[in-house]
């Protein structure tokens, strides 16, 4: 069911793609001339990034370590046919074709902030449906407490998977209440176009109040469990990446500050802007973590 989450951002807020660059250069010119401040108000200044920006600066290590590697190499990924296995503590386990999964789902547009753990950010107009709709269909059993996700494992098409530094496939997980939250999206597109391969085609998770690596791409498995699932970065660097990984300007990454972020697309003279608690979704999600020490459960 669409429309449960009411964003204060409407589709009409999205600047048409063609005029972005003009708008930016006008703003840049004004700031250079001292007409407007160079420091943006905060990261709640929600002008979506261009399609070009969103699709050319990606962390998708299955295709390489470079930010431009996914765009270069993800073209080789076969996304049709595509199936997702739904298993674990569900009433209707099975492997479902993506067409069957999408049947009856209303795809809606959600303009979300996207904050990478590396302290850069974008604003992305996603298309997708709420994960809750899929979980309801699968029939979550009362004993389930977590949802685990897995990315496709296909070294033949994913060159990064041929190297051994990560224990592929990429894995992520959410607590059940996080997974059922109306903000949590299964995204199938950007800007009304099918999900580009480098952004996690054909279907990926989007959890806007968490660091980007939680929003697992190219999902082939969803498993309901009663134990906390492993997540790849936590396994690699447990001191640096936690299970929760909620965006939090007060809890620094051991190697860098999380208090600020740089919006991709601002050019060579872009200033950093303050990072917002829960990436600006505090009102919607903070209650799920009431009483938790967010330094301990980072």
């Amino acid at each position, binding site marked *: 069911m669409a429309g449960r989450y009411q964003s204060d951002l409407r589709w009409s807020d999205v600047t048409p793609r063609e005029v972005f660059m003009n708008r930016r250069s006008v703003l840049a010119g004004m700031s250079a001339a001292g007409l407007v401040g160079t420091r943006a108000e905060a990261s709640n200044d929600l002008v979506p990034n261009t399609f*070009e*920006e969103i699709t*050319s*600066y990606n962390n998708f290590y299955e295709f390489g*370590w470079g*930010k*431009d590697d996914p765009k270069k190499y993800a073209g080789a990924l076969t996304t049709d046919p595509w199936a997702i296995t739904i298993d674990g503590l569900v009433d209707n386990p099975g492997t479902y074709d993506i067409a069957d999964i999408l049947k009856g789902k209303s795809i809606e547009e959600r303009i979300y902030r996207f904050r990478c753990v*590396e302290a*850069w950010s974008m604003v992305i107009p996603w298309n997708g449906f709420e994960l809750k709709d899929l979980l309801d269909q699968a029939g979550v059993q009362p004993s389930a407490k977590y949802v685990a996700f897995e990315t496709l494992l296909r070294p033949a098409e994913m060159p990064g998977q041929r190297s051994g*530094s*990560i224990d592929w496939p990429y894995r992520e997980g959410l607590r059940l209440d996080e997974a059922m939250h109306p903000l949590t999206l299964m995204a199938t597109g950007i800007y009304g176009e099918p999900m580009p391969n480098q952004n996690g085609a054909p279907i990926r998770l989007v959890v806007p109040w968490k660091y980007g690596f939680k929003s697992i791409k190219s999902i082939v498995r969803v498993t309901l469990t009663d134990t906390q699932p492993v997540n790849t970065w936590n396994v*690699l*660097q447990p001191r640096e990446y936690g299970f929760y990984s909620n965006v939090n300007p007060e809890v620094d990454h051991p*190697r*860098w*500050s999380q208090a600020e972020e*740089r919006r*991709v*697309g601002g*050019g*060579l*003279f*872009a*200033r*950093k802007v303050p990072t917002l608690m829960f990436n600006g979704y505090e009102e919607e999600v903070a209650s799920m973590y009431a009483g938790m020490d967010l330094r301990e459960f980072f």
Partner: protein
Amino acid sequence: MLFPMIATATQNVNGVLRSFPTWPVYLIGALPPVWWFYLGVTGGLGVEPIREFEHLLGELALQMLVVVLAITPLRQFTGIALIKFRRALGLLSFYYITCHLLVWLVLDVGDLAKVWADIVKRPYITVGMAAFVLLIPVAATSNNYAIRKLGAPKWRRLHQLSYLAAILGAVHFVMLAKTWHAEPLLYLAVVCGLLAVRALPKWKRMRA
């Protein structure tokens, strides 16, 4: 030189090198940061130009340090003498490191209080900063006047600070990667290798 042909070839190479002036090295070497700045302003460095500019400069600086450290072993093992260009290449690497630091200071962080906090708090930045500081006296004495003033032995000892700086530079690269990457580790291995071969001639002399 065991083989006369190789010896002749080496002499020829050295002859060409001798006739080549050093000023074009300074001139050409000065260009990359300027060119990247131009690209950054005009959109040629991708959608995150600050990070790209910073990384390009850091990597070039490290590459140039490797080249400078390779000059002595290259002469020892092949007889090819690049020593004439060592000062220029060394100063260029210091210039790249300075640009790298300036991009971080001005474009990336842009706030002196935060810069200091980062230097104190973030080990990879502390290490990188230490490498830069070690190279200041080396760069400042990269001239004939300083050699005369200090005397060759003292001057040489002072310039061995660049060995430590190169190691710290490579460690800085290793530390900032998200996980163990091959590339930074390779730089570290090459730097360590180039320093290790400096111990070889003494050992070879002892055997002779």
